[in-house]
């Protein structure tokens, strides 16, 4: 049986990325490098108003004064920010009413990913804002959303059509000065999604963006801003896959969520970007700033993520619980394999009275990878009766990988209750033996155990997304382990 386990582990370690391919679509690029002219170029390309350009330039100046952070438990060669393209867009911007009109290459890409737009429309009723490299190519279900007064469009459209909302909320959750990568994103963000749910509206469908990094040597800088007005509800899905590339690709996205009084935002991510090959060559650098603020009383923000890809993940979806009795949740499965490195977790900042937060993080490390949970739970002086529960578990598959936990817990209020638990272990021989005994082969057994281990998080995903998440987990571990 030990032999079996070894075989399986070797398979995990040697499993190639199944989604590696390059879609050949003509694209338009800015010159290599980063300076004020590039920022102006990007802004001009998007026909942005003056205030937007100024906002970008200010961010660029802030970025120049900042230093790249190195506190995370990840190692990578120095990034040459001048040796990357900061803008690339498909040349022909198709205006389509149906999938038939779409670029057949594009449709093929989505078929390979198993997320055919047709099928999604028909079966799931998901509106998909497809971000292909940097420009929104197609937005569906616009009409249905419009009826409810929901704004769901690309970020550049929102800059033109809803400047008041953008001016009010852009940078209000993640200011330009927040960190090095957020400043960089603020200067050169290419596009992204914007969503506004008016008061009292329950978004009738799950909103979803699939974006892919497609152009070689292109850093992609997404910007997402999601606002749920009083009493609104929205569930937002974000899923990504990327084709094989040799050059490291930098991805520094910013996601801002704002929940007003009684509003609820559910934000789910499945991330499966190219993690690099067995030797750690290539792969995406994923340096993302995601933060939500529960501005109003009784509001709720819930983050769910399944992270299987990227060479390096540096990501801490956070909640600022400002409104009284607001709730923050974080559910995460992070899988690392080969030479992948993940430093991910969350921050729960309790400011309002009676605020509650839950953190469930499940890390799985295999191969030569390192997987870290880094989290902060901060109970402010005024957070009377605040409550937090954190559970961070790590599972080790193989004896050359690492699993780490770095939780920061700070409390300044005597009425608050904080609980943190973490465990690290490997799959027990006895568990596998038990399943073997009942006629379940080792591979299936490991799969069962891993699935059970992640269940708490996968259950949080919207049903149709959970299927995809399981598929991605399968690619990373099944066929091999789980």
């Amino acid at each position, binding site marked *: 049986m030990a032999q079996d386990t070894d075989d399986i582990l070797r398979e995990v370690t040697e499993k190639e990325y199944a989604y590696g391919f390059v879609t050949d679509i003509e694209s338009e690029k800015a010159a290599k490098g980063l300076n004020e002219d590039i920022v102006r170029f990007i802004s001009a390309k998007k026909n942005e108003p003056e205030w937007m350009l100024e906002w970008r330039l200010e961010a660029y100046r802030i970025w120049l004064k900042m230093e790249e952070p190195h506190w995370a438990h990840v190692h990578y060669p120095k990034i040459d920010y001048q040796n990357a393209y900061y803008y690339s867009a498909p040349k022909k911007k198709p205006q389509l009413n149906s999938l038939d009109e779409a670029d057949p290459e594009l449709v093929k890409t989505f078929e390979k990913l198993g997320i055919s737009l047709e099928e999604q429309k028909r079966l799931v009723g998901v509106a998909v804002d497809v971000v292909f490299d940097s420009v929104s190519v197609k937005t569906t279900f616009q009409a249905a959303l419009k009826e409810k007064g929901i704004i769901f469009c690309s970020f550049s459209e929102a800059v033109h059509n809803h400047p008041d909302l953008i001016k009010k909320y852009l940078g209000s959750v993640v200011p330009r000065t927040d960190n090095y990568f957020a400043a960089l994103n603020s200067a050169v963000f290419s596009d992204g999604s914007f969503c506004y749910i008016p008061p009292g509206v329950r978004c009738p469908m799950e909103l979803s963006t699939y974006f892919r990094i497609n152009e070689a040597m292109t850093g992609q800088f997404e910007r997402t801003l999601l606002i749920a007005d009083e009493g609104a509800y929205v569930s937002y899905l974000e899923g990504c896959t990327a084709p094989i590339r040799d050059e490291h690709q930098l991805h520094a996205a910013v996601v801002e969520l704002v929940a007003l009084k009684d509003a609820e935002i559910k934000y789910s991510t499945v991330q499966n970007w190219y993690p690099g090959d067995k030797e750690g060559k290539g792969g995406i650098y994923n340096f993302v700033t995601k933060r939500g603020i529960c501005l109003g009383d009784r509001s709720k923000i819930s983050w769910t993520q399944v992270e299987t890809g990227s060479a390096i993940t540096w990501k801490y979806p956070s909640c600022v619980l400002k409104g009284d009795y607001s709730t923050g949740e974080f559910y995460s499965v992070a899988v690392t394999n080969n030479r992948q490195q993940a430093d991910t977790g969350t921050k729960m900042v309790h400011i309002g009275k009676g605020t509650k937060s839950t953190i469930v993080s499940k890390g799985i490390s295999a191969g030569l990878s390192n997987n870290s949970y880094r989290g902060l739970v901060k109970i402010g*002086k005024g957070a009377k009766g605040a409550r937090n529960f954190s559970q961070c578990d790590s599972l080790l598959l193989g*004896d050359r*990988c690492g*699993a780490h936990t770095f*939780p920061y817990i700070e*409390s300044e*209020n005597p009425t608050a209750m*904080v*609980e943190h*638990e973490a465990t690290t272990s490997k799959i027990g021989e006895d568990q596998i033996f038990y399943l073997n005994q009942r006629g379940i082969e080792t591979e299936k057994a490991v799969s069962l155990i891993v699935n059970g281990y992640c269940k708490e998080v996968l259950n949080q995903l919207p049903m149709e997304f959970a299927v995809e998440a399981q598929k991605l987990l399968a690619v990373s571990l099944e066929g091999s382990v789980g």
Partner: protein
Amino acid sequence: MSTATAIDPKANLLPLLEGSTWPNATEALALAHTLPVPSTRTEAWKYTRVAKLFNQPYAAPKGDATVTLPARLPFDTTRVVFVNGHFRADLSDDLKADKGIVIDSLKQHLAHGPVKAHYGQVAPIGDRLFTAMNTAAPTDGLIILATKGTKTSKPLHVLHITTDGGQLIQPRDLFMLHEGAEVEVIIEHIGTDASSSLVNGIRESVIGEGANLTIHLLQIEANGPVHIGLDGVTIGTKGRFSIDTTTLNGSLVRNEVNVALAGPEAHAELNGVYVLNGTTHCDNHTYIGHDVPDCTSDELYKGIIAEKGTGVFNGKVYVKQDAQRTRAYQSNANILQGDDARIFTKPELEIYADDVKCSHGCTIGRLDEKGLFYLRSRGVSEAEARKMLSHAFMTDVLERITNEEWRKHLASLIDAKLETL
């Protein structure tokens, strides 16, 4: 801002350390000049501010101060007295009673082989300013050398008395336990009206095969000096180390315990109790390195923080690659009382081996309201009920202390402290 004109914040203090003849003193002083003062941006000192310690002048410690010794412990011990860091044979008991065990002032033994072999090895300077400062000019300290199979017939009771303010005292102990030796030490810090003094201590312990070292550390210092302490410990095959740290009073207390499990089947047990009120700041910083397979470690720190007290706990368990079959447990529980009490805790795991069972847990809360109500409804006054629950909260840490007499003594001190909350 130009660095050329910036004044080194250590300029006040470092001249005091010149001219020491201890081993490695010159190199350490040079390092102390280059190492920066830790700030809140230094990860290991994130929650403990020490910059202000460098803003005041210090004097060399007074070894000949007259002191009145406190009453002896309620059980039999061998007493060793240090006054302002200096060994005082005149106040200590006969230290030669146990055959095969050397108990003396470390200063007298610097030229001896075992000291040369181990001094400075267990607590290397690295990037630690306070370690460099201590190594540059230790005041004096205790040497314990227990030869093969020896055992202390009764616990040592080491009294560190600080008499005045404004002193820089740098105790430096070296404990060496050979194969199968067993040593138990109670270390008590006493200091009143010494709040402007800085005690920067280092204790290095080398535990040989199958040897067993137990340290009980007690800190009750109203108006006492600032304490920066480092325990460097390395444990050999089947060796055992146990430390319990009890902090009941003080101004700024930093207890760092740095353990290397260096031989298979070594075991480390770290226990801590802190009951803080006033403006006491207590920082327990632990590192347990599982360097080889089959070692175990168990850590339990519990504290009650009241008034304007601040508690800090940072525990790290590091499991090296190939340190298979490691079992490591770590737990930190806190009760906050009072609107200005604060706790910062960071229990860390860093694991590079797969056949391990490691866990940590951390809780912050207040006394159980239901428990209080239960007791109140049975006619127990609120104050009494709180005391009972607080006492119960500490019980599981105390129960780990195997020396029954010390445990009883400690329990009475903790209860007396709880009375004052």
